[in-house]
């Protein structure tokens, strides 16, 4: 392991030559092929790519839920060896703890850190407000709608104050309107208190609308094909009007082209 000097310890998140091979009965699946990526501190990075290109795999590796076959992840100068509270994750399936109230769900991570119950309650209250769920604190997840559940999941991850927030198609199960609302909610939260976010999505609009940069992966085996630096053309703060701007459409065209090309490759290879 190389020792990094103090200057380098805040260099965000580094994906260094990550290769992932899954061993299955029928043989080996090369899911990620030598992926390298640098995510700046407090950057919002979207990850686009065709289905099965390895987006979830990459996210799970960054999270520490999956081991790399080769390469490594370095977060703020620390080599990742497993999951930890410094990297929060929100899944498409909300995975709330059904036996806990909304407030208890949001406090869960703080309790693991042995925060005092007063502190945990205050922080939970803050994030409950932030995601607009005041009044639902004492309810249980089974009485909430999908959108509300995902807001709890986001609040639960944020309350833990991770240095990186990983989102795997967080709004994939929601209807269009709820999706739009959730995107703006996430954007507002991030603009108010920035943190490093990596979000996987299938939705090109969503990817561009929220991100500083959009990384597009090639079809399997996954590599980073191209990175669109959308914050150049789409300055912040943004609101939903940018979705109809010239610049936005240009980025959208480019992203769609690449994804289409990769999907075609996939079709032709079968």
């Amino acid at each position, binding site marked *: 392991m190389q020792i990094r000097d103090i200057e380098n310890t805040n260099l965000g998140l580094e994906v260094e030559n990550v290769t992932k091979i899954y061993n299955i009965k029928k043989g080996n699946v090369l899911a990620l092929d030598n992926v390298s990526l640098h995510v700046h501190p407090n950057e919002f990075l979207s990850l686009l790519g065709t289905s099965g290109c390895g987006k979830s795999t990459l996210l799970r590796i960054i*999270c*520490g*839920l999956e081991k790399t076959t080769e390469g490594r992840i370095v977060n703020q100068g620390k080599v990742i060896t*497993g*999951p*930890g*509270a410094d*990297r*929060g*994750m929100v*899944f498409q*399936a909300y*995975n709330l*703890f*059904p*036996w806990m109230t909304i407030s208890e769900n949001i406090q*869960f*991570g703080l309790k*693991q*850190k042995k925060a005092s119950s007063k502190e945990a309650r205050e922080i939970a209250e803050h994030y409950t407000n932030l995601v607009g769920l005041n009044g639902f604190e004492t309810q*249980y*997840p*089974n009485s909430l709608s999908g959108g509300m559940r995902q807001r709890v999941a986001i609040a*639960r*991850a944020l309350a*833990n104050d*991770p240095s990186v927030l*990983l989102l795997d198609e967080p709004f994939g199960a929601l209807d269009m309107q709820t999706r739009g609302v959730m995107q703006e909610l996430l954007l507002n939260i991030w603009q108010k208190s920035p943190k490093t976010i990596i979000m996987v999505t299938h939705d090109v609009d969503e990817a561009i609308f929220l991100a500083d940069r959009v990384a597009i992966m090639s079809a399997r085996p996954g590599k980073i094909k191209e990175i669109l630096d959308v914050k150049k053309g789409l300055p912040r703060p943004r609101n939903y009007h940018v979705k109809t701007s010239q610049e936005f459409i240009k980025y959208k065209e480019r992203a769609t082209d690449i994804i289409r090309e990769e999907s075609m490759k996939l079709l032709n290879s079968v």
Partner: protein
Amino acid sequence: MGSLIDAFTPKGKMKSTYVVVIAAIAFAIILLLWSAFTLTGAVDQFFLPPPTDVIKTAISLFTQGDFIKDIGITVFRVMAGFIIAAAVALPLGLMIGTYAPMSAFLEYVVSFVRYLPASAFIPLFILWIGIDEPEKIAVIILGSFPQLILMIATNVRNVPMSMIEVSYTLGTSKADVLWKVILPKALPDIMDTFRTVLGWAWTYVIVAELVGASSGIGFMIIQSQRMMNTANIFVGILSIGFIGMIIDVLFKLCHKKFFFWNN
């Protein structure tokens, strides 16, 4: 009435008053058929006593003699055996369902033991431990313990991996995840396992009491058989049915009160 028809949609819900009424009708039908067969003389009353006789017998058994004591001792045996079995099976089942090495170490052994007929052990147990309470309790433990372990292990395995993973990302340690996530999530299913296996434990206790016992519902039944008292046998059997039903209802209430979040 409209809501009653609506309740016929698959997995539909129904008002609890309707539930009680419909359940009562089912019991009434049984009672009616029973009366029809016996009071008309279609079946010899010696083989199947009419409900009126059984009720009369029940009243005399409950007001005089040792039947209440018999029920008490049987309930005690079931509960003692079941609680001991459950107290040991819960941690072991949790470990087996969670940790692969524990599963390898115990699961095959327990699967083997599960098929050993508990009733066939009664003569051995009598030889080893005698005919007192420990022997009866041992039969119940042997009958329910392996079932409990394996079923609890399955309950634990049904906890979604993604829920465990999300708790890791929130800072839960590998050691804590067992108590903080796996146990609470599996608990409603484990309670269902308890309910099912407790029902089986009742059959074991009766079998244990048919052999070498001097008290208990099973003992009363076997005594009555010797005296050709079929009405007594019926009171014994029906009492077990009612006790079982009460226990089931208690479990259901418990479920509603503590696991309302689980759907």
